[in-house]
C-alpha cells in the first residue's frame, strides 16, 4: 500500500485539518503525582502546540518530566490540571475506554526497551497491534509483512525478538507503531538502548517512514545526535518547557 499524506488524511479526515494544522494543543497542562505524602509536579503548566506532520524532540535531563509529558500526549495518562486537545478532542477527563480507543486508532508507540511480545515473531508483533481494531487476521499479517518490508526486515518475518538485534527489534517496534496508520508516533528514548550507529539507522528508518506516512512524531531523548535530526527541539527542565526551537 502506498504511504502518503493523502492516505493519512483519508484515514481520519475529521480528526484534524491536515498537514500543518495543530494536532496537539496543550494549555497549562499539569501532572502531579502524590507518592507517600510527597507531591511531585512532573509536568508544570505546559503550554504547547504541535502541528500535524511535525517531528518534535523533547530534550532534558533525567527526571525533567519528558516521559510524563509523552504519556499525556500518548493518551496513556490523564492530566491533573490544564487542558490537552488531540485531533480536536479534549483528552482530559476521558475514560480509560475512550483513551484506549484513541490509542488503538490514532497513536503509535516506540519504547526504549522495544517492548515486543517475546513469544511472537516479528510479523506477529506487528499484527497484534491491529487486533483491537477488528482487522481480519490474514489482513493483519499482510499489513505486517508490508510494514516489515518497509523497515527493511522482510527477511526476518518469522524471527522471534530474542533472535533479532536491538536495532532490528526497534525497527519491528516502528513497524508496529505504524500498523494502525496513526496520526502520531510517541517515541520515548527510542535509541536509549542502542549504540550510536544503530541509533542512526533506527532514526533514519523513523524519518523515512514519517515522510512516506506523513505521521507526526514526538520523540523524547537526551541524545544530542538524535535531537539534531528533528525539525523542532523542545527542552524541558523540572517539568517545564524551558526552550522551544519553534518559538
Amino acid at each position, binding site marked *: 500500500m502506498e504511504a502518503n499524506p493523502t492516505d493519512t488524511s483519508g484515514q481520519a479526515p475529521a480528526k484534524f485539518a491536515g498537514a500543518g494544522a495543530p494536532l496537539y494543543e496543550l494549555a497549562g497542562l499539569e501532572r502531579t503525582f502524590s507518592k507517600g505524602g510527597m507531591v511531585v509536579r512532573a509536568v508544570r503548566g505546559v503550554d504547547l502546540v504541535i502541528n500535524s506532520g511535525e517531528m518534535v524532540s523533547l530534550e532534558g535531563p533525567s527526571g525533567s518530566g519528558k516521559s510524563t509529558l509523552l504519556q499525556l500526549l500518548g493518551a496513556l495518562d490523564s492530566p491533573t490540571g490544564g487542558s490537552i486537545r488531540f485531533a480536536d478532542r479534549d483528552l482530559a477527563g476521558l475514560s480509560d475506554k475512550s483513551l*484506549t480507543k484513541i490509542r488503538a486508532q490514532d497513536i503509535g508507540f516506540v519504547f526504549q526497551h522495544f*517492548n515486543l511480545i517475546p513469544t511472537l*515473531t516479528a510479523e506477529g508483533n506487528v499484527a497484534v497491534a491491529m487486533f483491537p481494531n477488528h482487522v481480519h487476521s490474514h489482513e493483519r499479517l499482510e499489513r505486517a509483512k508490508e510494514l516489515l518490508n518497509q523497515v527493511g526486515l522482510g527477511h526476518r518475518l518469522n524471527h522471534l525478538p530474542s533472535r533479532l538485534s536491538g536495532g532490528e527489534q526497534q525497527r519491528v517496534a516502528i513497524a*508496529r507503531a505504524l500498523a*494502525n496508520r496513526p496520526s502520531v508516533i510517541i517515541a520515548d528514548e527510542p535509541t536509549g538502548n542502542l549504540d550510536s550507529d544503530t541509533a542512526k539507522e533506527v532514526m533514519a528508518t523513523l524519518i523515512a517512514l514519517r515522510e512516506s506516512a506523513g505521521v507526526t512524531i514526538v520523540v523524547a531523548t537526551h541524545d544530542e545526535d538524535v535531537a539534531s535530526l528533528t525539525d523542532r527541539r523542545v527542552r524541558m527542565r523540572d517539568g517545564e518547557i524551558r526552550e522551544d526551537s519553534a518559538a
Partner: protein
Amino acid sequence: MFSPGYAWNELRRRWARTLVTAIGLAAGVGLVMGIIGVSEGLSDAQNRVLSPLGSVGTDIIVTRTIAPTTDKTSTTTTTTPVREVVGPGGGGGGFFAGNVPGASLGSSSQAATLLNNNASVITDLAKLGPAGTKFTHDFFVPGTLITFPSVAVSDVAKLPDVTSAVGALSLQALHESGTVPKITNKVKEGGQTIKTTVTPPVLTPTQTANERACIQKLVQGNLSKDSGTSGSSGTSGSSGPSGPSGSGGGGPPPGGKHRFQIFVGGLSSNPAFEKCLTPAQISYNQNVVVPEQTITQILKPPTTNTATSSYTVAGVNPTSGTTGLITKSQLVSGTWFTSNPADEVLVNTAYASTKKLKVNGTITINAKNYKIVGLVAPTLTGDVSDVYFPLSTIQSLASAPKFVNEVLVDVKSASDVAAVTTEIKKELPGATVLTSKSLADEVTGSLTNAHKLANDLGGALAIVVLLAAFLIAGLLTLSSVAKRVREIGSLRAIGWTRGAVVRQVIAETVGIGLVGGLIGIGIGVGVCAIIGAVGPGLSITATGLTVGASSVSSLLGQSTTATATTIVHLSAPVHLTTILLAFAGALVGGLLAGIAGGWRAARLAPASALRDLG
C-alpha cells in the same frame, strides 16, 4: 474475543510454564479421578455384593430359624447323651419326621425338632454297617433352618402384591469318611426286684379293735407254748400289747389318734398273724418287679477316626432362571441346568476354585456322579451355597420330599415389601422374613467401612486436592502476569482494551487447563490402574442369612462362625463421566487461574509500559 494465534504461541513458546501449571492442575484432577474411582469401585463392589436380592428379582426371603432364646436350651440338651429307645418306629425317621405342617412353631419345640434333625447324622452312621466298616458318605442336615411344607410356598404366592414365590432347600452337607464308629452303648435295664417299705393306710377304730382282739387271742394262745418268740420279735411284740399310747421305732407318727404301726415284713414272717390283717394291708405286701428293656445310649462325640468336611448345598428350581437363590445372570461359565437336570449341579466359583472343580467335571455324592454344568457366582447375602442341585434331587438326597426351607418372594413393587412382609409373618407365624434392605443392613466389614470412609473423607479430600490444584494454578498465573507487566502494559498502550487483555490471559490459562485436563486424565487412568493392580482386598461379612453350620458344628464339637465373608479386591474404575468431570475440573481450574491473572492484568496501567522496570 481473544487472539488464538497469540495464545497458542504464548503457550507453546513458554512451554515450561505451561507444563508446570498444567501438571499442577493435572495432578489435582488425576488424584480426584483416583478418589472418584475408588469411591465408585467401592460402590460397585457393594452393589455387586450387597444388593443381590434386587438383582435377582427377589425382594423377600422367608426362612424359619430357631429363635436366639432357644440357643441355651439346645446347648444344654446336646451336652447330655442323646437317648433313643430302640424299638419299632424308632430311629429310622428322616430329619423331617417331626415336622408336621401346622405344628407349633414354639421355640423350644423348634429347637428340639432341629436338634433331632441334625442328630440323625449320628444315628445314621450306625446304619452304614457294623462298627469298623470303612465308609464315605455325605449327610444332609438342615443346619439352623427349619423346613416349610411346600404348601407354604403356594400360600405365600397367593398373598396380594406377591408376583411370585419360589421354594428352595438349603442344607448343610457333611462329607464323612472313615470307619463306622462304635457309637452306641447298649445298657440292659430292669428285671430287678425292688423291695419297698410301704406305710399302710390308717385303720378305722373298729378294724383296730378287731385286729387287736384277734391278735390278743392268738398271743394268749401261743404264750403258753412259745414264750421266746415275743422277745425275738423285738419292739413290735411288746408294742402290740402296750396299746395306742406306745411309741414304735418307725419314726414319728403323723399325729393320727388311731395310729397302729407294724412291720409288714415282720408280720408276714409270722403267717399266723396274717388272718388278723385287713385286705388293704395285705395288698402292699408284694415285691415290685421292673420290666426288662434295653436302652441304647449314643455317645457324643463318637470316638472314631471319621474325617468330616462340610459344605453347603441348595436345591433350586432348575426351570426358574430368573428368580431363586441363584439365577442365570450369576452364571460365570458353563451353562444353566438342562431340560433333564436330575444329575446336574451348578457349583459356586469360590468352592470350585478351592476344590479344583471344573465345568463338565463331576461331583460324587453317595456313590452317584453329578455333572457340573456350570459355575455360578452367587451374591453374598443371598444365602451362598457351595453346590446347587435341582430342588427335587436334593430333596431325595436328603430324604425330604416336598420340603423347602426357604421361600423366595418377589413382590410387585418395592413399596409393597413392608406390607407383604407383615402378611407373610401373619401367614407363617414364627417365620423369619428377610428383605434385601434388612440383609444389607446386617452386612459389616472393611468394605462398608471403606465405602463410608470414601464417601465421608473422599469427598472432602477431592475438594481439598482440587482447591490446592486451583490455588497452585492461580498463583503460577499471577506470577506469570507479574513477569509480563511490560508486555501487558505495551498491549494496553497500543490499544488493547482491559477486556481484551483479560480475555487473552483467560484464554491462555484455559488452554493450560485443556493440557492439564489431558495430562490429568492420563494421571487419573494411571492412578486407577495402579489402585486396581495393587488395591487391597476388602472383606465383607454378611450375617443376614445363614444356613448355619452352627448347630451341626456344635454337635460335632467344631466351632464355626455363622457368617459369610467375602474378600473383594478394590478396583477403581474409570467411567466416561469421571473423565469428563476431570476434564471439566481442569478447565474450571484454568478459568479460575485466568480470572485471577486477568484481574491482576486489568489493574496494570497502560503507562507501565513506559516505565523503566529493568
